[in-house]
C-alpha cells in the first residue's frame, strides 16, 4: 500500500463488499423516500462492483500482483483473507457483469420490493466472496449467504410450484452444506487451520479415516451444489419454476461461485479427482440425453445448464490430473475460462430470452419467428452454447480435446463430443420450433420493447469479444480467419434495404474477399478455389431472380462462401475446423430460410455436427500422435494413420451424404431455397471432396497406411453411388430426385479418391468439376421450373419444353453430360475411373459402377420426360421461360461443358499438375488422345465423329421433309381409338413412373437407413425417459439422493477399504 492512491483505495476489491453492504443499508432508506432512487442506488452499486472488478483485473493483467485482502490485522493463516488474482478477477468480473445485465432483465420484478434489491446485492456479494475467499469456513459462510439470498429471492414468488421447488432446493442444499460444514470442522481438527493455502500446504496431515471423511464431505458437499446427476432434481425444479432472473443467476452466478470453490479445493482432492471427473462426465452426458425429451423451455435450459457445469467439472478434474505437465496452468485458464464465460453469457442470455418470450413449451416459440432480431439472438446463444465458432466454447473445447488427445484420453473425448452433439440436438430442435412461422392470425404478439433484449445483446457482444481474445491468445486470430464473419456482419448492416439488389454487394464482397483469401494458394487448393469461389459466385448470380427481400440470406451466403475460402487456405487443423464449422453453421441457417426448411435443416445440422465431431476426433488423434496442428504434418502420425484416416474420411463422407448417412440430404436439398440448393449441391458439397482429397493426399497415398481403409472408402463410395441412383429413380419430387442424384454422383467421386492412384484422382477431380457444372445447371433449371409452375412434384408438370425451350435444352445437355454418354464430359470421368479401377483390380466396384450408371439413366430420363415432355397441363399453357438471370449462369456452364467435352486436355492438364506432387503422373498423351494401360480416349475425335454421324441423318431427314407435308400438331393429337383423351393429367404417364422397377428390385430401397436412424432417435428418447425417472418431483426423494450421493462417493472412492 505504499503507492496507494485515492483511486486504488476506492477501487480496492474490498469495495465490492463495502458497496454491497453499504447499498444494502442505503436501499431501505432511499426506498422510504422514493423507490426510484433505491433502484438507482442498486444499479449504481452493481455497476461499481463491475467497475471495481474490471479495474483490478486490468491492473493484474498489466503486471500488478494479485491483491490479498487481510482482515483483523493479522497475517493468514491466523486470519481470514481474500484474494483477488487473475482467475478470481476474471470470474468476478464475468459474474458481476452477468449480474448487472441480469438485474436489468430482472428489474421489473425486483423493484416490487426494496428487499428484493437488497437480496440481489447480497447474493452477488456472496458469490464474489465465494470466489475470493481463501478461508474454508469463510467459504461456508459465503455459500450460506448466497443460499439464503437465493432462497429468499425464490420465496418472493407466491406461486405454489415455485415455493415447492424452492423448498426442495433448501432441503437439498442445506443437507449438502451441513456435510460441508462437518467436513470443514474435521479438516480443521486434523490440520488445525482453516486457511485454504495452509491446508493445502499441510495436506499430508489430512489422513486416515477422518481425513478421508473430511475430504469426502467437503468436496461432495460442494459438488452437490453443482447439481450432479442424479442428485439434482431440486435444481431442475427451481430452474423450471423460478423467474428467469433468479434462475439465470443460479445457473451462471451461484454455479460459478461453487465451481470456483471446488477449483480452489482441488489440490486436496487427490484420488477423488477420478470420481470428480466421472461425475462431471456422467452429468454432462446424461443431462444432455435427458434434454432430448424435454419440451419445457426453462427445464430444458436447466438440463443444459447442469450439463455445461458437468463439462466444466470434467474439464477441471481432467486437467488437474494432468497437473504435472508444464504449461497446464495457462491451458486451464483457456479451457475452463473459455467454457465458463461461454456458459455464463450464453446460458444467462437464453434464460433472459426465455423470460421475455414467456412460452413454457419450446413448441410455442414460433411467436418470435417474425422477430428476426430475437431469433438472431437466440441462434447466437445456442451456437455459442454448443461450442460452435466463433464463440469461446469452440476454442475451449478445441484446446480441451487436443490436450486430452495428447494424453491419450480418447474415451473422454468421445464422451465430450457425444454430449455436445446431444446438446446441439435439443437446442437446435428448439431453434427450429422458434423458426416455424405460424399463420398471422395465430401470431400472438409478444410485448417486448426494444430495450428489453438489450442485456442479451450485450451478452452476445461480450461473447464475441471473449472469443476474439481467446483466439488471440491461441494465436489464430488472423484477420483472414475472421473475414467471413466481418463480411457477413457488414452485409447484415445493409440487410434492411428492400429489394434484391443486396446480391450485388454480396457478390462484390465475396469476389474481393475470395480473391484476397485464395490468391496465394497453389496446387489442389488453388484448383478448388476456382471451383468453390468462382463457381460459387457464378451460381450466386442466379439468386438475383428472387424479387423478395430474403432477409438474412445474403449475409449468410457471404459467410458461407468466404468460409469456404478460409477452409481452402487453412494451414492448421484448427483453422480448417473453424472454417468447417462456420461453413456448416451458415449453410444450416441458409437451409432454414427455405419454405419448410426448419426441420430438414435440423437433421442436416445434426449429421453435419456428427461429421464435424468425427473430423474433430480425427484431428485430435493426429495431434496426439504428432503434437502438431499443421495439416501438412498429418502424414507423420505413424501408427495412428489408419485411425486418423478413418475418422476424417468418415466425417467427410457423412457431410457428402454417404451411404447410410444420407437421410438428411434429400430433405435438406429439397426444402432449401431453390437457388441455394444449386449452390449446396454444386459447390458446398465439394468442401467434403476437398477434405477427402486433402487427407488422401496427406495420409492415403503413403505406403505405411494399410490399403484397407481406402478399399472400404471405395466400397462406401460405390454403394453411395448405386443406392443414390436407385433411390433417385423412385422420387416424385424434382428436387429430391436431384438430391439423390447428387448423392450418387458424389459417391463416384469418393470412389475415385479412394483409388489412391493418379488416374483415380484425376478422374475424381474431373468428375468434381463436371458435377459442379451439370448439377449447377440442373438445379438452376429446377429453380426456374419451380418458379414458373410453383410446383415440385414432377407428375404435376409435363410438356414444358414448349414453354421453356432454353431450360429444356440446358437440362438435356446437362443430363447427357451427367449420364456419361459420349461425347460430353461425363464419359471422360467414367472412362478414367473405370480404367483406374481395372488398374487397381477393384473389379466388383467397377461392375457396380457400371450398374449404377445404367440406373442413373432411369431417373435422368424420367426427369426430362415427366417435366418437359409428355402432356402439358392446361394451367401451364401460358407459362413463360425462366428468367434470363437464371439462364445466364446455366449458359456459361453449358459453354464450359462443351469446351471441356471437346478439349478435356484443357482441364486435365492443370488437374494432373496439381496432383503430381502427391502421386507420380501416369497420364500418357498421344496427340489429343489419352492412353492408359487398357485403352485410349480421343475426345476431339469422338466429338467430331459424333457430330458427323448426327448431322448426316439430320440433313437426310430435312431433305425428305421437303417432300412431305409435315403438320405441326397439338398435344392431344396422338394415336387413340376408343376414347379420346380428356385431361392432360390422365394422359401424362408420369406418376410412379418405374412401378415395374419397384416391383422388381424396389425392396432394395425401402427406407432402411431412415428406419435405422429413427430407431436411434427412439432409443435415445427411451434412454432419456429411463434416466429421468429419478426426478419424481418429491423433495424427500431428492434429499435422499443427496444423502445417497455421499454414500456413493464414499463407496466409489474405496471408503469400505478404510
Amino acid at each position, binding site marked *: 500500500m505504499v503507492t496507494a492512491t485515492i483511486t486504488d483505495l476506492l477501487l480496492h476489491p474490498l469495495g465490492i463488499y463495502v458497496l454491497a453492504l453499504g447499498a444494502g443499508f442505503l436501499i431501505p432508506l432511499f426506498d422510504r423516500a422514493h423507490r426510484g432512487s433505491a433502484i438507482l442506488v442498486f444499479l449504481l452499486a452493481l455497476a461499481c462492483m463491475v467497475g471495481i472488478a474490471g479495474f483490478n483485473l486490468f491492473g493484474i493483467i498489466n503486471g500488478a500482483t494479485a491483491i490479498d485482502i487481510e482482515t483483523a490485522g493479522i497475517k493468514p493463516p491466523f486470519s481470514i483473507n481474500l484474494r483477488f488474482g487473475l482467475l478470481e478477477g476474471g470470474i468476478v468480473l464475468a459474474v458481476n457483469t452477468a449480474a448487472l445485465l441480469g438485474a436489468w432483465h430482472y428489474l421489473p420484478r425486483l423493484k416490487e420490493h426494496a428487499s428484493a434489491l437488497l437480496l440481489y446485492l447480497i447474493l452477488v456479494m456472496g458469490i464474489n466472496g465465494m470466489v475470493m475467499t481463501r478461508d474454508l*469456513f469463510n467459504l*461456508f*459462510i459465503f455459500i*450460506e449467504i448466497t*443460499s*439464503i439470498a437465493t*432462497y*429468499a429471492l425464490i*420465496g418472493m414468488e*407466491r*406461486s*405454489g*410450484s415455485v*415455493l*415447492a*421447488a*424452492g*423448498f*426442495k432446493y*433448501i*432441503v437439498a442444499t*442445506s*443437507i449438502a452444506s*451441513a456435510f460441508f*460444514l*462437518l467436513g470443514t*470442522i*474435521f479438516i*480443521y*481438527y486434523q490440520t488445525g487451520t*482453516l486457511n485454504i493455502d495452509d491446508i493445502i500446504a499441510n495436506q499430508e496431515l489430512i489422513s486416515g479415516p477422518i481425513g478421508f471423511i473430511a475430504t469426502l464431505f467437503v468436496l461432495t458437499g460442494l459438488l452437490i451444489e453443482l447439481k450432479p446427476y442424479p442428485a439434482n*432434481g431440486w435444481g*431442475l*425444479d427451481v430452474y*423450471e*419454476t423460478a423467474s428467469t432472473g433468479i434462475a439465470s443467476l443460479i445457473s451462471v452466478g451461484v454455479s460459478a461461485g461453487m465451481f470456483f470453490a471446488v477449483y480452489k479445493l482441488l489440490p486436496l482432492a487427490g484420488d477423488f479427482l477420478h470420481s470428480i471427473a466421472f461425475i462431471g462426465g456422467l452429468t454432462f452426458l446424461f443431462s444432455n440425453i435427458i434434454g432430448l*425429451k*424435454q419440451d419445457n423451455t426453462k*427445464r430444458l435450459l436447466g438440463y443444459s445448464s447442469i450439463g455445461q457445469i458437468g463439462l466444466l467439472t470434467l474439464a477441471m478434474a481432467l486437467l488437474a490430473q494432468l497437473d504435472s505437465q508444464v504449461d497446464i496452468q495457462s491451458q486451464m485458464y483457456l479451457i475452463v475460462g473459455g467454457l465458463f464465460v461461454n456458459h455464463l453469457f450464453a446460458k444467462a442470455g437464453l434464460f433472459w430470452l426465455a423470460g421475455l418470450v414467456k412460452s413454457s413449451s419450446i413448441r410455442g416459440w414460433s411467436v418470435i419467428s417474425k422477430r428476426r432480431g430475437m431469433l438472431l439472438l437466440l441462434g447466437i446463444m445456442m451456437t455459442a452454447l454448443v461450442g460452435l465458432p466463433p464463440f469461446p466454447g469452440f476454442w475451449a473445447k478445441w484446446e480441451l480435446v487436443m490436450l486430452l488427445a495428447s494424453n491419450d484420453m480418447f474415451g473422454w473425448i468421445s464422451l465430450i463430443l457425444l454430449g455436445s452433439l446431444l446438446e446441439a440436438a435439443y437446442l437446435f430442435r428448439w431453434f427450429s420450433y422458434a423458426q416455424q412461422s405460424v399463420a398471422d392470425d395465430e401470431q400472438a404478439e409478444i410485448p417486448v420493447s426494444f430495450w428489453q433484449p438489450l442485456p442479451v445483446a450485450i451478452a452476445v457482444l461480450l461473447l464475441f469479444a471473449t472469443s476474439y481474445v481467446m483466439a488471440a491468445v491461441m494465436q489464430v486470430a488472423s484477420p483472414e480467419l475472421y473475414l467471413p464473419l466481418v463480411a457477413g456482419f457488414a452485409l447484415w448492416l445493409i440487410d434492411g434495404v428492400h429489394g434484391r439488389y443486396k446480391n450485388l454487394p454480396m457478390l462484390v464482397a465475396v469476389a474481393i474477399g475470395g480473391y484476397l483469401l485464395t490468391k496465394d494458394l497453389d496446387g489442389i487448393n488453388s484448383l478448388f478455389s476456382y471451383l468453390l469461389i468462382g463457381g460459387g459466385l457464378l451460381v450466386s448470380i442466379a439468386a438475383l431472380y428472387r424479387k423478395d427481400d430474403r432477409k438474412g440470406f445474403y449475409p449468410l451466403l457471404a459467410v458461407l462462401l468466404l468460409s469456404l475460402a478460409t477452409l481452402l487456405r487453412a494451414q492448421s487443423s484448427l483453422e480448417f475446423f473453424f472454417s468447417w464449422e462456420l461453413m456448416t453453421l451458415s449453410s444450416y441457417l441458409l437451409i432454414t430460410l427455405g419454405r419448410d426448411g426448419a426441420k430438414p435443416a435440423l437433421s442436416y445440422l445434426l449429421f453435419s455436427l456428427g461429421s464435424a465431431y468425427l473430423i474433430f476426433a480425427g484431428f485430435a488423434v493426429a495431434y496426439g500422435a504428432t503434437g502438431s496442428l499443421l495439416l501438412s504434418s498429418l502424414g507423420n502420425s505413424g501408427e495412428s494413420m489408419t485411425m486418423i484416416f478413418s475418422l476424417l474420411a468418415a466425417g467427410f463422407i457423412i457431410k457428402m451424404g454417404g451411404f447410410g448417412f444420407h437421410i438428411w440430404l434429400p430433405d435438406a436439398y429439397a426444402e432449401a431455397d431453390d437457388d441455394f440448393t444449386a449452390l449446396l449441391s454444386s459447390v458446398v458439397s465439394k468442401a467434403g471432396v476437398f477434405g477427402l482429397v486433402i487427407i488422401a493426399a496427406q495420409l492415403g497415398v503413403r505406403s505405411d497406411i494399410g490399403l484397407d481403409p481406402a478399399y472400404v472408402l471405395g466400397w462406401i463410395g460405390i454403394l453411395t453411388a448405386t443406392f443414390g441412383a436407385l433411390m433417385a429413380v423412385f422420387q416424385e419430387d424434382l428436387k429430391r430426385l436431384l438430391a439423390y442424384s447428387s448423392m450418387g454422383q458424389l459417391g463416384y467421386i469418393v470412389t475415385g479418391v479412394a483409388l489412391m492412384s493418379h488416374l483415380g484422382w484425376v478422374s475424381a477431380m474431373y468428375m468434381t468439376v463436371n458435377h459442379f457444372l451439370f448439377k449447377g445447371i440442373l438445379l438452376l433449371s429446377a429453380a426456374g421450373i419451380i418458379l414458373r409452375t410453383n410446383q415440385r412434384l414432377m407428375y404435376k408438370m409435363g410438356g414444358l419444353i414448349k414453354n421453356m425451350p432454353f431450360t429444356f435444352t440446358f437440362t438435356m445437355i446437362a443430363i447427357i453430360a451427367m449420364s456419361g454418354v459420349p461425347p460430353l464430359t461425363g464419359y471422360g470421368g467414367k472412362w478414367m475411373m473405370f480404367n483406374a479401377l481395372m488398374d487397381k483390380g477393384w473389379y466388383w466396384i467397377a461392375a457396380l459402377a457400371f450398374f449404377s450408371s445404367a440406373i442413373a439413366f432411369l431417373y435422368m430420363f424420367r426427369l426430362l420426360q415427366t417435366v418437359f415432355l409428355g402432356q402439358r397441363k392446361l394451367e401451364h399453357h401460358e407459362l413463360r421461360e425462366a428468367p434470363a438471370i437464371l439462364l445466364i449462369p446455366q449458359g456459361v456452364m453449358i459453354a464450359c461443358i462443351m469446351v471441356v467435352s471437346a478439349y478435356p486436355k484443357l482441364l486435365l492438364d492443370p488437374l494432373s499438375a496439381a496432383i503430381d506432387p502427391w502421386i507420380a503422373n501416369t497420364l500418357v498423351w498421344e496427340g489429343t488422345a489419352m492412353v492408359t494401360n487398357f485403352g485410349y480416349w480421343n475426345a476431339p475425335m469422338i466429338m467430331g465423329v459424333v457430330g458427323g454421324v448426327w448431322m448426316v441423318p439430320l440433313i437426310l431427314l430435312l431433305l425428305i421433309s421437303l417432300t412431305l407435308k409435315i403438320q405441326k400438331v397439338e398435344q392431344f393429337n396422338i394415336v387413340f381409338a376408343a376414347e379420346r383423351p380428356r385431361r392432360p393429367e390422365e394422359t401424362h404417364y408420369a406418376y410412379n413412373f418405374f412401378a415395374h422397377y419397384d416391383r422388381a428390385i424396389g425392396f432394395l430401397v425401402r427406407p432402411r437407413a431412415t428406419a435405422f436412424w429413427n430407431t436411434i432417435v427412439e432409443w435415445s428418447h427411451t434412454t432419456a425417459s429411463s434416466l*429421468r425417472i429419478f*426426478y*419424481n*418431483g*418429491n*423433495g*424427500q426423494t431428492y*434429499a*435422499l439422493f443427496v*444423502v445417497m450421493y455421499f454414500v456413493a462417493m464414499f463407496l466409489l472412492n474405496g471408503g469400505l477399504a478404510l
Partner: protein
Amino acid sequence: MNMLTDIPISLIVLCSGLGLILIGMWGMLTQRNIIRMIIGFSLMDTGIHMVMVSIGYVTGGTAPIINDAVPIADAVNRVVDPVPSALVLTAIVIGLGVTAVMLAFAVRIFKARNTLNIDECTESKW
C-alpha cells in the same frame, strides 16, 4: 471413577451430536409434514454444532484466555481451542437464518396450496 466418567466429555458430545445429525436427517427424509422436516433440519443443525464444539474441546482444559493461569508456552495443551466455538456461533446464526427462511416457505406454501404435505408438491418433475 466409574466407566462413564472415563469417557471424555468431548466424545459424549461428539456422539450425541452425530446421533442428532442422524435423527435430524431421518426426520427430513421420512416426515411428510414440512414443519416436521424443518424440525429435522434444526436437529441436524444442532447436531453439527455439537460435533463442532466437541472437536475443539480439550478435556480438562480451561477457557482460551491467556493470563497468568495459563502460561503461553503451555497454552496449546491446556486451553480449549477457541476457533470451533467461534465457528459454532456463526454457524448457529446461519442455521437460524436458514430455519427462518424455511419456516417462511412453510407459511407461504401453506397459503398457496393449503397443505403442508411435501408429497403434494411434486408438480414439477422430469
